């Protein structure tokens, strides 16, 4: 009996010494991409000059679904965060003869909650449209990998998840003189708990959050 007691005691002592605590419950309860309420504003600086302001404008309906409208510079984009997933309204166009030809519009899942280190997402779209008698084809592939938790590169935000995003777009104007045109963009996005995107790094730009104001519920 005494041996058993000693063994159990040693196990508890080892547990108490070797335990690795991290704020897992905090991360689970945090919103890593807040898209409400209206009025919330993120102000970013762009490396090399300039700034970008992102604001939650209001609620609206797009593609027959209620969503939140965000303004980023002069552009609007639309988001839904419900049922454990963040969805973005993708509006893809192909430039042909000076016109932006709409080719694909739909809600696509951006992330599934909760995020975890090593999580992967892959989304792809293949679509065609005919404009001025010419067939335009469009292929879009997005691969995302989640890493973390980690501190943002500027050292300001802890418990961030880094999203490594690779986007491949292949547009093909199927007429004489045109070949498939492939564009690949790679970026890293750091998401902080209850703040959202705090940093984005791509081959030609680095944007960093300088201020965040939550809106009023």
């Amino acid at each position, binding site marked *: 009996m005494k041996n058993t007691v000693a063994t159990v005691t040693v196990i508890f002592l080892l547990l108490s010494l070797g335990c690795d605590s*991290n704020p*897992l419950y905090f991360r*689970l309860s945090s919103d890593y991409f807040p898209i409400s309420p209206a009025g919330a504003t993120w102000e970013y600086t762009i490396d090399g000059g300039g700034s970008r302001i992102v604001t939650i404008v209001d609620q609206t309906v797009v593609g027959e679904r209620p969503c939140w409208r965000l303004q980023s510079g002069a552009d609007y984009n639309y988001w839904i965060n419900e049922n454990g997933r963040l969805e973005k309204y993708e509006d893809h166009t192909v430039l042909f003869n000076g016109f932006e030809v709409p080719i694909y519009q739909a809600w696509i899942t951006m992330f599934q*909650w909760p995020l975890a*280190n090593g999580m992967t997402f892959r989304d792809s779209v293949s679509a065609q449209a005919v404009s001025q008698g010419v067939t335009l084809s469009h292929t879009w592939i997005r691969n995302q990998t989640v890493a973390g938790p980690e501190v943002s590169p500027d050292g300001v935000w802890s418990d961030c998840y880094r999203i490594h995003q690779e986007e491949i777009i292949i547009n093909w104007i199927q007429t004489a003189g045109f070949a498939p045109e492939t564009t690949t963009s790679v970026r890293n996005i750091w998401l902080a708990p209850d703040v959202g995107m705090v940093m984005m790094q791509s081959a030609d730009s680095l944007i960093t959050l300088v201020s965040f104001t939550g809106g009023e519920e």
Partner: protein
Amino acid sequence: MFKAMILMLAVVATVWAGTADFIFEGAGITPIGGWGENLSNGLAGGLYANWLFSPKLRAGLGIEGAVFGDANQGSASFTQLKPMGTASFFLRPHGVIFNPGVVVGFGYCRSRLASGGGIDPESWDMFWRAGIRWNFSLGSPWRAGLGLDLESVIASEKPGDAFKLTFGVSREVQL
């Protein structure tokens, strides 16, 4: 470290008792607070061995495992493993139908999140629980107990609180 010493003392103290009570307990767990927003309610199962200091007072060790699924038909799963020291006090230990009691537990919780093919770093945190039991006889030497527990994983920055509904079967053994 101080709390580990308390556990050690509780274990050593049990050496002097002569009757043990073995319990298997199953439970449904409901997370309290935002940490369970994307997780379903959990299921838990635990094994406990208590020594009887007196018919009313008992203390011992136990281990419980709990698993939570994804609340939205996704691929997330969350698991907890809780080795703990426990103590309980019952008012009418030989009551056939109604033997009310209270239980407390203290130990460590290993928490692990897996989602979308990824796994977050696991966390070891201190943990406590307190609850009430309605204990009754199933025919000697078997007894059963229904209970409600409030428990909390004392994690950094935000605790993992939960509410638990339990049903357990126990048997006393003379050593």
